[in-house]
């Protein structure tokens, strides 16, 4: 009899991330610092980016230039993004200072960096989707770096349609997929353990 793929997947998930680890109701006692909030605040800002961005997408790229309500949603989107990057960078620093890649957590670290890089692209394409002088200036100034790097021929900052569709669909989709993987990895491995109090006692790889 051939192997049942569905049962294999279910067994694998149950083994790797059982529900009590995926949705924990206890945490190790050492999780006792405000730095642990940076990740969840980044995620919360991301939720507001998606919500405000969805409203802006529903009414189209011209709306916020002509409607006060639209302009408010644009402001909501902008400040959500500023908050998102602010807390994401704090989160990144905190994870660095805790050497949070230890004990098999390197893919959580690498995935976090991938999200940071995709977010930068999302931010850039967002600036370019604004249909105002910010977008125009960033496009003509930024094109030289893209061209010099050899990607300007297919990643054309001056092509509004391309930037807009990347911004409202492709990049958010990639971010959401990466985010899902990041959260699953965090829960699979659990919160990183404290470093030994005395660094000299630690000989294993960091």
């Amino acid at each position: 009899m051939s192997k049942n793929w569905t049962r294999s997947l279910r067994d694998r998930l149950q083994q790797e991330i059982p529900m009590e680890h995926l949705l924990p109701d206890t945490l190790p006692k050492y999780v006792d610092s405000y730095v642990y909030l940076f990740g969840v605040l980044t995620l919360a800002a991301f939720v507001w980016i998606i919500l405000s961005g969805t409203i802006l997408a529903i009414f189209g790229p011209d709306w916020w230039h002509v409607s006060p309500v639209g302009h408010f949603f644009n402001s909501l989107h902008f400040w959500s993004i500023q908050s998102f990057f602010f807390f994401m960078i704090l989160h990144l620093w905190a994870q660095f200072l805790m050497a949070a890649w230890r004990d098999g957590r390197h893919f959580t670290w690498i995935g976090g960096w991938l999200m940071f890089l995709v977010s930068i692209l999302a931010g850039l394409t967002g600036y370019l989707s604004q249909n105002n002088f910010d977008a125009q200036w960033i496009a003509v100034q930024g094109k030289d770096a893209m061209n010099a790097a050899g990607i300007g021929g297919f990643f054309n900052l001056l092509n509004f349609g391309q930037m807009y569709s990347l911004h409202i669909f492709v990049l958010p989709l990639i971010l959401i997929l990466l985010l899902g993987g990041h959260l699953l990895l965090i829960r699979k491995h659990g919160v990183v353990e404290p470093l030994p109090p005395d660094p000299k006692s630690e000989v294993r790889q960091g």
Partner: protein
Amino acid sequence: MKQSNSATPDRQVYANSRFEQIPYDLVKEMTWAIVGMGALVLILAGVFSTPDVPMLTAKQVASQDPMVLVNTELSDLASTGEIAQYGPPYNHNNGSVQAIGGFAPQTWLGVTIPVNSAQDNVLNPLQRLAAINPAVSSTLSQWRTASGRTQQAWIQAVQQQLPKATIHNGRLILPQSGTNLGPVPAMVNDYLALANSGLLESAIDAHNGPAPELDRTRSLLLLQGKADHIYAGKLNMKGEQWGIIKETGNYPGAVWLWFYTLLYQIPPYSTAANADLLVVLTVLLVTAVLVFIPFIPGLRSIPRRLRVYRLIWRNYYREQEGQR
């Protein structure tokens, strides 16, 4: 505390469960974080709003700095402008090709977005205008039937007079008229008329695709030089003033790109002709180091040496020391 390899029997022991536990509610924390963040961004959006300075249009340039548009038109027509000389991905020249030795990724894919400044930005839009104004047709046919050498001579003759020329009622007034100027003065006036009508961008972009508003590559390239720089200078948006990726006004820009934009301000990048390529490669290298830091001996031990973790887990360490 190391997790065991999959071959060992204690694989199922969850690393975290080896430590004393405290109650926690993931869903409640997430919910309150979303509520709190919502309050924060609502207040920020309500108090600070966002800037929205309209795009610079050819119509605006034609009325505020018409001579800039005339200069741009003539250099595009003569194929001596920055974009005409640019190189890949727009054409086969090499005016803006950046390389380190023989390493020039800009040339790898060749010309993928062909731009012919004279045709795309000047002649084709005028041809469209001719459909409305038949007088433009005869001007254009005089241009088209002339040799390349004659065309260049006409353009240069007009360019020589430009420092003393004026624009009056949307028309170019040259100090001297004459047959040595050919149809160029008329073409300049037609071009100014088209720009003043507000239709120039559409006349440029519509030639290249089904939906001109979706791909504005060519009309944006028309104004990318002096016109955009004058306007950006007025708004304090030039590189030496603030860095390029930001909003107009006193708004935070892409501060997360501080390292990228910083490099442009410091030597050797600030003075290099291939600054863009150098900056991009440097940023890629530094990023790769940071991404793969878990595998780089020495660098991965920096957090241990910095000892900031002592502060983050201070309660845990205090308790551990108390138990000893």
